[in-house]
């Protein structure tokens, strides 16, 4: 007799084999320029429930380039575990051929060359085509949006998220959870959420004053699909008031609250849920830990840390699905639910290759419509780039190097600090840099570029604090961003040390001198979480800098020495 565990593992193996063979095949086909939409979307419908997961779109309505990280270090139990495997190691692990479309979409290495061959990724009109195809095979498939949707572009900023709401409504999601949405300010978030034609979920969204569940965000919703009663529980980003400016949404409190998650799972099971899905913005390692603590979850659809994995990760009886970011991927997860148990699954991470997948005309029209008032501003060319501009990676990306250069020169500072966010598309050498491109990597509601004095000692405290948010061995103490980027400042980091001892050899790059704890330095930065921060908007600082450069070249950055990875 096949036990449930055997079933899960069998399906897992089947997924792996399916994935491996298909990748190789598609790689060859792609090389012959013969990759088709049908091949990308090919899926043998399985079981009785289908989930469609998209997350961390960051307001990317149109196709973009997005380079996956080459440095993504895991710590503690997650050292060497996915998603902390990159580049060639990642491809080897999943049997992905070098040069294949899967190489291009899911891993780093040869990015600029592959980007020229395979073209841009994403575009919500292409995403719509994929969703429609899945719905044609399984009409009541559930579309679940993991959040970070209403943030990250020129049009999103200027419409306060209305562009994304309009386009997402056209895709007809069934539920959503949240993170950067709250940086629109609680009044605007409340207004948008009240008008949503689908569920806005978050079991960990609480009223800050009373420490009770917030009324506007129910913890879960039931769906009947394929004759199965499915409960979807929302999990918003736990550390919103810490990682983002809490003063913009003072009425709300968050936190992981895994004890409340267990209560919700028990409650929906008691109310007859046959399948429990958590739509999460925890970040992958936090989800892994939570899956080991909370029992009774079948599927966690994981967002926040922007990882794209071609197979789910299994923790106990829970599968965790990671679906990338910036509209680059859609995950389809088919489940076989029998008598309240998940007997097996089939999964596919579908890369949205924009030149292969036909745009859906209706959604394309909605996108054009929301962008129409801004077309002239969006398309203005500010400069060109000779270098690959990207952001993702634990320590630095060329976009951030460029932003730090802009801060140093435009704000006349000794040292620049740029936040280690994980959003922001890439540009390939030879590309124009338009205003839209600059906004795609800087847009936020607290983007003012401050200039202030900091002592060497205080700079050390800042770097240690951020490093612990990334490299604390306990995932529950990680906030899911990357290390703060530094301009004009080099350092050595030993990630295995405790907070306070990781950062040494801080050096002022302009003089080569060691940073003096007692000395005061002029520091420019942006994205301060403090209320009342003043300065020009970061996108204006970067635009001025690029205009002066004309053509941008970013030289390799070796100012951070990493030890213990």
């Amino acid at each position, binding site marked *: 007799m096949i036990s449930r565990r055997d079933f899960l593992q069998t399906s897992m193996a089947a997924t792996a084999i399916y994935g491996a063979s298909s990748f190789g095949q598609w790689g060859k086909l792609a090389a012959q320029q013969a990759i088709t939409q049908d091949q990308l979307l090919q899926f043998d419908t399985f079981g009785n429930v289908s989930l469609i997961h998209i997350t961390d779109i960051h307001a990317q309505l149109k196709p973009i380039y997005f380079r996956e990280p080459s440095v993504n270090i895991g710590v503690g139990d997650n050292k060497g575990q996915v998603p902390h495997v990159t580049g060639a190691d990642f491809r080897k692990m999943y049997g992905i051929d070098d040069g294949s479309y899967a190489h291009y979409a899911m891993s780093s290495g040869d990015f600029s060359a592959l980007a020229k061959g395979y073209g841009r990724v994403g575009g919500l009109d292409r995403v719509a085509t994929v969703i429609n195809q899945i719905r044609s095979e399984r009409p009541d498939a559930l579309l679940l949006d993991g959040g970070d949707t209403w943030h990250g572009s020129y049009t999103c900023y200027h419409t306060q998220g209305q562009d994304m709401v309009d386009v997402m409504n056209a895709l007809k999601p069934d539920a959503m959870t949240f993170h950067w949405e709250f940086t629109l300010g609680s009044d605007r978030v409340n207004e948008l959420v009240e008008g949503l034609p689908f569920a806005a979920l978050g079991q960990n969204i609480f009223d800050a004053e009373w420490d009770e569940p917030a009324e506007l965000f129910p913890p879960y919703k039931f769906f009947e699909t394929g004759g199965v009663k499915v409960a979807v529980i929302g999990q918003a980003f736990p550390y*919103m008031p*810490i990682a983002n400016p809490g003063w913009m949404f003072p009425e709300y409190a968050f936190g992981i609250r895994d004890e409340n998650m267990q209560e919700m799972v028990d409650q929906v099971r008691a109310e007859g849920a046959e399948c429990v899905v958590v739509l999460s913005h925890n970040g992958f390692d936090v989800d892994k830990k939570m899956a080991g603590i909370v029992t009774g979850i079948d599927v966690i659809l994981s967002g926040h840390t922007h990882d794209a994995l071609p197979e789910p990760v299994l923790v106990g009886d829970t599968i965790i699905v990671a679906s990338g970011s910036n509209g680059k991927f859609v995950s389809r997860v088919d489940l076989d639910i029998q008598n309240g148990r998940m007997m097996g699954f089939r999964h596919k991470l579908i890369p949205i290759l924009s030149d292969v997948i036909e745009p859906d005309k209706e959604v394309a029209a909605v996108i054009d419509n929301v962008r129409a008032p801004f077309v002239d501003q969006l398309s203005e060319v500010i400069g060109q780039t000779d270098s690959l501009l990207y952001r993702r990676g634990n320590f630095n990306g060329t976009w951030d190097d460029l932003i730090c250069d802009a801060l140093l020169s435009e704000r006349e500072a000794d040292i620049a600090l740029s*936040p280690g966010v994980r959003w922001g598309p890439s540009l390939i050498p030879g590309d124009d840099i338009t205003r839209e491109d600059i906004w795609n990597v800087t847009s936020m509601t607290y983007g003012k570029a401050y200039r202030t004095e900091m002592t060497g000692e205080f700079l050390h405290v800042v770097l240690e604090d951020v490093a612990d948010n990334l490299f604390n061995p306990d995932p529950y*103490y990680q906030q899911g961003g990357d290390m703060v980027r530094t301009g004009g400042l080099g350092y050595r980091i030993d990630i295995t040390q405790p907070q306070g001892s990781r950062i040494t050899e801080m050096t002022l790059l302009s003089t080569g001198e060691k940073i003096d704890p007692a000395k005061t330095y002029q520091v420019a930065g942006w994205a301060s979480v403090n209320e*009342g921060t003043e300065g020009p908007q970061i996108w204006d600082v970067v635009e001025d800098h690029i205009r002066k450069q004309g053509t941008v070249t970013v030289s390799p950055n070796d100012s951070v020495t990493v030890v213990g990875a």
Partner: protein
Amino acid sequence: MELTRRNAILMGAGALLVAGLPIRASAAADEAIAAFTGGAEVGTGDITLTAPEIAENGNTVPIEVSSETATEILVLATGNPTPGVANFKFGKLAASRAASTRIRLAGTQDVVAIAKLEDGSFVQASSAVKVTIGGCGG
């Protein structure tokens, strides 16, 4: 108060300075535990302490303690200059032996709850609460 740029920067710096290295348990915390237990051994068991992993605001951190059989629960913020937070006493007729409150934490530290159970034994639960600068979230 009119918020000038200088004030904003100073306020920001003030808020930042709160964070930093974890504060070690003080001798005062050890003394408070010894006074509560009379030196008896402290085990683990019927005591639950719920606290956030990372405080949203170090000045008001929500915590909750509960136990089925406690007659008394002592709560300590071991890294605060004055570690004593609360001492909850429960009678035989108490409907539930749980209490929640908000506490102020001087920085990253362990919050400890020690319960005296009906049988006279002591059990302890501890939770590390991080007080951080913030910013830079994904």
